[in-house]
């Protein structure tokens, strides 16, 4: 495992108009580390990971990804995005393209890979997420779970060093959550650096190195999963976990 930091946030502030979304966030993620971020809605967890690949520009503080400091300068944002894959809550597959084209488009246009090579890579990762046979279908013909697996494959095709997951299972029907989590677990076991916003506590227990609890734009508490769930230190963490406890863990 590579122990040097690949993502560093230092004093990151973010406002949406009057609303203070991130209040001086400090975070260091080392290569190969798996971070799970949880917290109530509106706590800033999605904003945090969207700042890491520049989908949201931050207002002050520094974000460094893979040695590149993310400034509002667009050139560098593209460099950062080349290293960072992202999976969204609502999948965001391109509905006018086939599954295979979804996975090859950015390879061809952003990485200048020849089409044949891009297709080979795409088929490899579609096999990885266990849907090689759907390559020529369109996203609308797939179930939600299958679409999210395609979205993971699409991100992996770019060979990212870091993967961001923004509530990847929240839009899924209960019976499809596990097929997506299984892929994420196997990705984690292979040593991918992952930052996941999720409320799947079973997943956090199974693979996370650290669990972060965010509230009101701040990281309130962070700890190894066992400690985090058994002995939460902060009152707000306890209140949050108390509300989650009624849901059974999805992954053992």
């Amino acid at each position, binding site marked *: 495992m590579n122990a040097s930091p690949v993502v560093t946030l230092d004093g990151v502030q973010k406002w949406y108009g009057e609303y203070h979304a991130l209040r001086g966030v400090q975070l260091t993620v080392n290569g190969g580390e798996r971070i799970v971020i949880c917290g109530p809605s509106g706590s800033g967890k999605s904003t945090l990971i969207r700042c890491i690949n520049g*989908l949201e520009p931050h207002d002050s503080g520094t974000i460094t990804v893979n040695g590149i400091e993310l400034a509002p300068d667009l050139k560098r944002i593209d460099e950062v995005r080349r290293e960072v*894959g*992202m999976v969204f809550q609502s999948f*965001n597959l*391109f509905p006018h393209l086939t599954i295979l084209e979804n996975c090859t488009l*950015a390879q061809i246009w*952003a990485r200048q890979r020849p089409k044949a090579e891009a297709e080979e890579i795409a088929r490899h990762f579609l096999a990885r997420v266990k849907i090689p046979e759907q390559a020529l279908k369109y996203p609308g013909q797939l179930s939600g779970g299958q679409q999210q697996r395609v979205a993971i494959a699409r991100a992996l095709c*770019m060979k990212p060093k870091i993967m961001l997951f923004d509530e990847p299972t929240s839009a899924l029907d209960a019976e499809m959550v596990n097929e997506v989590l299984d892929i994420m677990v196997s990705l984690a076991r292979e040593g991918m650096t992952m930052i996941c916003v999720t409320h799947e506590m079973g997943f956090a227990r199974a693979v996370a190195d650290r669990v972060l609890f965010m509230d009101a734009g701040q990281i309130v508490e962070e700890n190894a999963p066992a400690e985090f769930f058994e002995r939460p230190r902060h009152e707000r963490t306890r209140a949050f976990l108390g509300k989650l406890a009624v849901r059974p863990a999805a992954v053992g």
Partner: protein
Amino acid sequence: MSAATTTRHSLLRALFGNLASSLGTVAIGAFLLMAVPHLFSWAVINGVWQGGGDACTGDGACWSFLRAKFRFILFGIYPPGEQWRPAAVVVILIALTLWTLPRSHWTQRTLGLWIGGVVLSLVFMGGGIAGLQAVPTAAWGGLPITLLLTVLSLALGFPLATLLAVGRRSQLPVIRFLCVSFIEIVRALPLVSLLFIAAILVPLLLPEWLTIDNLARALVALTASSAAYLAEVLRGGLEGVHRGQAEAARALSLSHWQTLRLIVLPQAIRNVIPPLTNTAVVVVKNTSLVLVVGLFDLLSAGRAALSDPAWPAPYAETYLAVALIYFLICFGISRYSRSLETQR
């Protein structure tokens, strides 16, 4: 009940289901009883199919006029000996259109064919090279003008419309202002006045040595008009594309323009095929307005044909023939867009 009885039954109910539809049925039936025999005797029984102007004296339709004048209506005052050239242009443009219909032909090669086809059409029309007799644009006329103006104002207007629609949503106030001004001003002016501005005002403003051809000026006005309307249609389509689509593309490190071209625009265009079709049909018919600046499109060539004193000026027959051509073009566009909507 058999299928036939059911059909008869539902037909009866549609025609005489209640008082209002019964009255409507009776009224329309009475009108048809009067009109159809009259129309039939005008068009067929008394219709004149042979002979010259003096044969068209009775109550019948003067179809022989169309026989005598179809070349003038289709090609205007283009030199008769050279009319194979505009005929070739019509064939080229129709053939290219038919070639472009299947989705699998939407390639760069097809774009190249179109550019080549339009250049070839202009060479055929204008002549002056390759041993072709030079024909000034003032002598161009009829269907080729209508087709060329339609094709060019849509082909030039669509990319311009795309820029305007994207610019209208730009973060940069100057660009947004320029795009909004263009769209709003062009939309606020009647096309006829836009044509007059292009034909009369622009030459007054420009220095003498910089004279632009009358046809080109009309084309500029038509292009500006179609671009403004298409831009508003496209803007609606752009707004219908979910924000997450662009975010996903950007997260995959596609550039801003790649995201627009490969992800957002294709979806935006697909969202607005019905209103785009509507605008395209309007553009086809708007080309007939160029007659106000003295250009001979299909409609004005038809009108000019009627002024021959050797004939009794059969308006209805001529306008029916011209209307039929417009109908075929517009109905074709409409059917095609239907089929696009149902395809993936």
